[in-house]
Each structure stands twice: as structure tokens, then as C-alpha cells.
């Protein structure tokens, strides 16, 4: 998946504050993944341009599982992405669902 650009037209009205897309500072506190495979899935949260990263605890993969595990995170950025990889010989993964839990905590950085 690649980055995408999105923008919207902001229209001022009487009863709504200006809403912005992509500039709020969000706090990501957990990720949940539906994944099967073999080995260990290495997870990393990355900011824009990979300036800041947080390495999460790896997920131990199973070829069959009824659990969608959660990994806690503590990552505050305006934009973030999740990066996953395997590193050892013979490891593989099949991912069908990714849930990133985040909440806006600020509207932007001071000017």
C-alpha cells in the first residue's frame, strides 16, 4: 500500500468548527491483526518519512489460530503507518485484517 494524498474543501458555517484532514495529532495506543503463518511477525509504527519509529513486540505466528492478538503502542504523530515483516528463513504470513486504535489528542503543533 502506498501513501495517498487527500484533501477536502473546508467550508465555514455558523455551527461547526473548521475540520481538517491529516493534521491532527493522533495517539495510537494499540494495533490488532488477524494473521496466520509461521515464525515471528515484526511490527513497527512509523511516522511520516520514517523520522520517528516505535518497534512493537513481535507476534508469534501460528498456521491456525482463533485469536486476533493485540499489541500495545504509544505513538503520537500527525500521520503514522504500520510496517510488518518477517526476517528468518522459511517464515511466512497471511494477513486479512488490521485494526489501528488511535484517538486525536491535539489539533496541531504550535505555530
Amino acid at each position, binding site marked *: 500500500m*502506498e*501513501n495517498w494524498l487527500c484533501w477536502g474543501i473546508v467550508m465555514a458555517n455558523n455551527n461547526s468548527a473548521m475540520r481538517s484532514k491529516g493534521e491532527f495529532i493522533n495517539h495510537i495506543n494499540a494495533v490488532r491483526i488477524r494473521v496466520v503463518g509461521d515464525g515471528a511477525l515484526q511490527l513497527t509504527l512509523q511516522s511520516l518519512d520514517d523520522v520517528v519509529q516505535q518497534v512493537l513486540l513481535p507476534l508469534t505466528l501460528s498456521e491456525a489460530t482463533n485469536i486476533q492478538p493485540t499489541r500495545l503502542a504509544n505513538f503520537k504523530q*500527525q500521520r503514522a*503507518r504500520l510496517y*510488518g515483516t518477517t*526476517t528468518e*528463513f522459511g517464515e511466512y504470513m497471511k494477513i486479512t485484517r*488490521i485494526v*489501528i486504535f488511535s484517538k486525536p489528542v491535539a489539533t496541531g503543533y504550535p505555530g
Partner: protein
Amino acid sequence: MSQISVPAVLQDSNPDGAIAVGAGNFVTAVNDPNQGKYIQLQSDLVSGHVSFFTYELQHVDDPGIDVGFTLRAVARWDTAGPGGVFPTGFFVTLLGEGDPFNVVFIDFTIDGESPTFIEIVRPLTALEVQNLRAGGFFGPWINDVSGPTIELFMSTDLQDPADELTLRTAFIQFEAPDAGPPPPTPDVEITSDAGIEFGGSNFIEFVSDVGLLFNFSAAQLVFNEFLSDAGLEFGGGGLASGNAFTSDAGLVFGMSAADIILSVDASGIYTIVPGKRYDTIYARNNEDLTEDVKIPNPLWKTGYVGG
């Protein structure tokens, strides 16, 4: 390969006085039309008899003869006497420079009157071959003997003076490869049995107008560990034509997670095999020379979330 053999070449020289070939005495060279040529040692003494023969190396160019260090001694003996067991020793000694040394010693027991034929093949050591090539002389004991010498010595314990033991030696043959041309002499030569270590806090520089040459004729050049922050660089003309890094299994540069592997004449075609969790690099001309490698860190990235 050089070879000497008796009796055609040898000329006996007895310390008791020169004995012409063919003359009858304790030692005779015999040319029997039926049995061929041989040296006959005849002893009726308790302590035995010694004969010395000079020899000259003859070059033999025979591709059928194995090149190596070989001594063949063929002896045939028969006894004349009342019969019985006679402990006997038969020496063939190559007398080179310095102290003489035995080339072969045959310790046998003659049982009764029975012709016996024996052939001994004995490998020579490098030192013996060198002495064989260099020749030598017996020493000051015999003033009229010079040059490389073979000593035939027979010792027999004959109890009865009437007994007689005859040893007929068909031939004694030495084979030794000819010495090749001497290698060029370097200006500086460093040798060590325990290895050579270069150490220090600065770099070591090899400077040569013709380059750095490693010449290992019998062994490979093995780098167990080659450390360099800058890596290994081949500059200038690079590797000389005809010389290259060779490996049956390909080459592996780097031992990190991102190995670079160069296989021997890899096929270059990527084939997806369902369920296979690794890649296999096939050598085009030899299916046995394959290398299983991991798929280089498969990864995924989500889009940027937020907003």
C-alpha cells in the same frame, strides 16, 4: 627419472683390491646365457663378506615407469652345503655424502637348499633421493673409490666352515625423478613453521610493480576472516584474465540479513511454487549445485492513518 641397475653399470671395487668384473673371487659378475646377468656374492665366512660397487645414474625416459622414489631389489639365492637354517642378513646400502645409510635391509633365514626369489619395493625418502641424485662417496676408507657407491653386504652365520652360501643378486634398481629447474630466488624470503602474523596499529601495504601474487599450487587461499570497513576493492586492471573467484556453490557476500548471493550461472527465472517458503537459486548447468536462500524479508506497510 633416473635409474641404475646392476650389473651392467656397476663396476665392483673391493677394498681388498680391485677385482675386475668377471674375475672369480668372493664377488663375481656373472653373465649366464640361461639366467642372465647377476652379481654373485659368495661367502664361506662366519662374519660375511662386503663388496662395494660404484654406479652412475642413467637417465631413463620411460612414460610407463611411475615417477617417484622407488627402490627395487631383486635377489635370488641358493645355497650349497649340508643344509639347515642359516640366519642371513642382506644389506643394500646407498653410500652418499656424509654417513652411509641403509637403503634396505633384508633379514631372512635360509632353510635348506632351496632357490629363492624375492623382490622388494621400497619407497625412498626425499633425502635419499637427493643423495641418490648427488651421488657421493664412501669416504676415506677406500682411497680408490669415488663417486656414488652401493654397498652389498651379506652376513651369514655359518657354523660349519665347509658350508657355503651363495647369493645371486639379479638386479638392484633405483628410480628417482630428475630434479627440475630451480625456482627463482626471491630477494626476500620469510618462512615460518608456526605461521606469520602481521600486526600493528597502522595499515600494511604491499607495493609491487606487477601486482600481488598468491601462488598456492596444492592448496586454496582461504580467508577465514577478511575485515575491512571499506571492503575489498579490485582497482586498476581488476582481476587478471583467466583468474576469478570460483566456488561450486556460488559466492556469498556479507553475513547480514541482506546477503548478496551470486550463484554459479544462475538460471535467472523466478518461478512461483505454491507453498514454498524460500527461494532456490539453481545453477544453470548443474542441477545439483543449488542454494536455498530465504525470501528477502517480505514486508508490508499500511497507508498513513490519522487525521
